[in-house]
């Protein structure tokens, strides 16, 4: 990979290191497992680079297979027997001792499919003929189905956001994005009416603190919302606030009671940002976000330098997916949007996430290698 972007790999390595360090500080046992997953992720990364070192664009031919694969993966948690519901959301698959979130890989397969499909159809789509939108409406339907099945606003928002971004890049029609957003909001509103879990998430987001006791859905008793439904969000905000400007310092943060009971649940997955923000403070948290911003900037640069439509769409989709995922989880933790449990790329504890992110990195490096090589050789 002599021509690959020289920044992406170090940035990803930095994020991974921050992640493993933080996980080690929070749960040393998890850090060991996370390191193993990093090794597996790097293996996938290496295999992808070796297999596609000449021309990754071969995958374009199998785009429908990728699309189908993505749908199957998304549907897996809904299957009885292997599907697992954790924390109210149906995102997990368990086969024997192996437990993973297929949504993470489905995201990448979806991007590959969309890159291939949209490169094919971008001219006709731009004309706005309704029949060409069939497969796209199918995707919208699938995203809604996923949302309904998994009860998870976050992954649906992520999949659909990537979809809209790629349609926009392919067609240049902002009106499509507006129509898509309207459709998504419509669907989300419908789901909100029907699914309690989604309603709770939104209520918690709008009003995490109450002065008077309200009905607590978990216990069926009256309690202040900060002691009930919103306790995770509120405690995570307290953690962030406790960091202040300079943070408490690594290892000096407060995450457990004096008797050693954890105060914030899911601290090394969903809430890892609030752990980092407490110990490193505003200075450290902002620095971490800047690393994400640099990664996004480099990824988009790869897309701009790429020569063919497929590569451009692939790189733009992967990069935007990375940015949107960061926004959804950190924005949820910071109460910018309703909180949903997805992972912070490269940093959160979680095998499927680590592997998926290294595959994403491999994709960006492959595109950049080819693009830069052509610029240099020309």
């Amino acid at each position, binding site marked *: 990979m002599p021509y690959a972007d020289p920044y992406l790999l170090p940035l990803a390595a930095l994020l991974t290191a921050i992640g493993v360090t933080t996980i080690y500080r929070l749960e040393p046992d998890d850090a060991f497992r996370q390191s193993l997953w990093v090794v597996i992720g790097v293996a996938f990364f290496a295999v992808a680079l070796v297999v596609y070192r000449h021309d990754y664009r071969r995958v374009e031919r199998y785009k429908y297979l990728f699309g189908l694969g993505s749908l199957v993966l998304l549907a897996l948690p809904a299957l009885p027997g292997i599907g697992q519901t954790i924390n109210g959301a149906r995102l997990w698959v368990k086969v024997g001792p192996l437990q993973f979130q297929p949504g993470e890989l489905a995201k990448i397969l979806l991007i590959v499919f969309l890159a291939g499909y949209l490169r094919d159809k971008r001219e006709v789509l731009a004309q706005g003929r309704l029949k060409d939108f069939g497969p796209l409406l199918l995707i919208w339907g699938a995203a809604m189905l996923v949302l309904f099945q998994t009860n998870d606003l976050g992954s649906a928002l992520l999949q659909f956001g990537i979809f809209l*971004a790629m349609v*926009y*890049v*392919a067609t*240049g029609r902002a009106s499509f994005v507006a129509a898509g957003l309207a459709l998504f909001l419509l669907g989300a509103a419908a789901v909100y009416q029907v699914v309690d879990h989604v309603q709770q998430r939104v209520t918690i987001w709008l009003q995490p*603190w109450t002065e008077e006791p309200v009905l607590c859905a978990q216990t069926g008793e009256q309690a*202040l919302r*900060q*002691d009930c439904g919103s306790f995770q969000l*509120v*405690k995570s*905000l*307290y*953690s*962030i*606030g*406790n*960091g*202040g*400007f*300079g943070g*408490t*310092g690594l290892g*000096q943060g*407060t*995450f*457990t*009671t*004096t008797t*050693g009971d954890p*105060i914030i649940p899911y601290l090394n997955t969903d809430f890892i940002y609030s752990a980092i*923000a*407490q110990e490193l*403070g*505003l200075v450290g*948290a*902002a620095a971490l*976000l800047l690393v994400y*911003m640099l990664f*996004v*900037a480099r990824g*988009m*640069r790869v*897309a*701009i330098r790429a020569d063919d*439509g497929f590569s*451009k*769409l692939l790189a*733009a989709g992967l*990069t*935007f997916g990375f*940015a*949107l995922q*960061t*926004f959804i989880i*950190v*924005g949820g933790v*910071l*109460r*910018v949007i309703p909180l949903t449990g997805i992972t912070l790329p490269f940093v959160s504890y979680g095998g499927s996430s680590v592997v998926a992110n290294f595959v994403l990195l491999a994709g960006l490096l492959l595109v950049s290698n080819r693009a830069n090589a052509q610029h240099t050789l020309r």
Partner: protein
Amino acid sequence: MNDQIRKLALVGTALIVVLVVATTYWQAWAAGDLADRQDNQIQRVAQFTVKRGEIIGSAGRPLAKNKRQKIGGRTFFFRGYPQGGLAAHVVGYSTQSRARAGLERSLNDYLTGSNANLGAVLDKLTGATVTGSSLHLTLNLKAQRAALDALDGRCGSIVALDVRTGKVLVMANLPTYNPNLIEESFGKIAQIDAPCRPVAPLINRATNGLYAPGSTFKVVTAAAALDSGKYEPDSEFVDPGYCEVYGRRVNNYDTTRPFGKVDLRDALKYSVNSVFCNIGKELGSKRIVEYAKRFGFYSTPPLETPANERAPSGLYEQGELFDPELDSDVDPGRFAFGQERLLVTPLQMAMLAGTIANDGVVMRPYVVEEIRDPDGEIVTRTKPDELGRAVEPETARAVASMMRGAVEDGTGTAAKISGLAVSGKTGTAETGVRGLNTTWFICFAGREGREVAVAVVVEQQRSTGGQTAAPIAREVLQALFGPTANS
């Protein structure tokens, strides 16, 4: 497509910028509000890693100190209260399981060193244990103990102030509680029983207990009467044993013995209701409210304890402080001798006695003498502060001499101490339950330039303030002035 990608790159970057802004909001802008929230468990736990400043009473005896404990590699400093319930309502508590109270709450910033003292900031940066500043209180623990002993299990409250400075020397309440039990045995505190309802052992009765003042309020009326220039101590009245207000008779405490011809001096000495009733009708209720305000009524008495643990004294209606707009809103006759809807705190009544003894100048009460940083350097030292003048010096001195008479050979003789000039006023307020009274004694005494004012209230008593509260005040004065006062 590059145009679109550039716009998408902008969107992606903007999303991250939003996160930076939101993080800045929570960590810089809203951090203080988050830290102040009482349900902030992280803040509560984090503060146990701070070596909290001690709280120290008279003679260097600690009221609150730290117990060092290592759990899971971290050192925590938990609170211990060596004196138990002795001054629990002033000191308060700092525990994980409950919100803080008392000085532990209101002066938390000093105690945890988060009041921007440079040493604490450096400790935080270098990862060393942060040490807070210590509080040195004005409380005289010997007299505090004597006050609790004198209450002898009865519900009540005692406040003693240094007249010239406003230092709180005694602030004792029964029932009290052992702050060491708050964390793990709160149930035991909930089970505390005492001969009064509500029992409320956690309430600082001295600053937050509202009681009918009974005849102790006559001190305000007498001061208003003299200060207005309408009356002299020698002004003559005729006491028929009762007073007519709005066509209804209000009796003296003892109706069998009308005084007949009596002057104002003797009316205060023997607590003759009808005389004060007539003064009240003459002055009007608004003028009496006006004077009460000058003594500090109608505003929350200043003290270092949390504001929500202090209540203002005054007329109350349906639980709200009520300031009459018209004279006719309040029955001036009954108001003048401490009935009507008047409710007062023991601290306010001690301030009243102290103001009379201090020639009419109200001193700001304070309980924290000085705050010292971990090196022993003084961070702040409280200077005595005048809140204002309530009455002219001549008025104060005339009322003082009338109160002296009440202890010499009036209703308050039980407070007499040989070798110490005690001046006081008794009060006996009906509780609404027949035969049960809230009894009062407010007084001041001085020797060799040192003067002390004391207010005593006892709940649910079957006899008078002179019989129940005055002897308690005597015990407290003896503890404050030492054994030589007995000889």
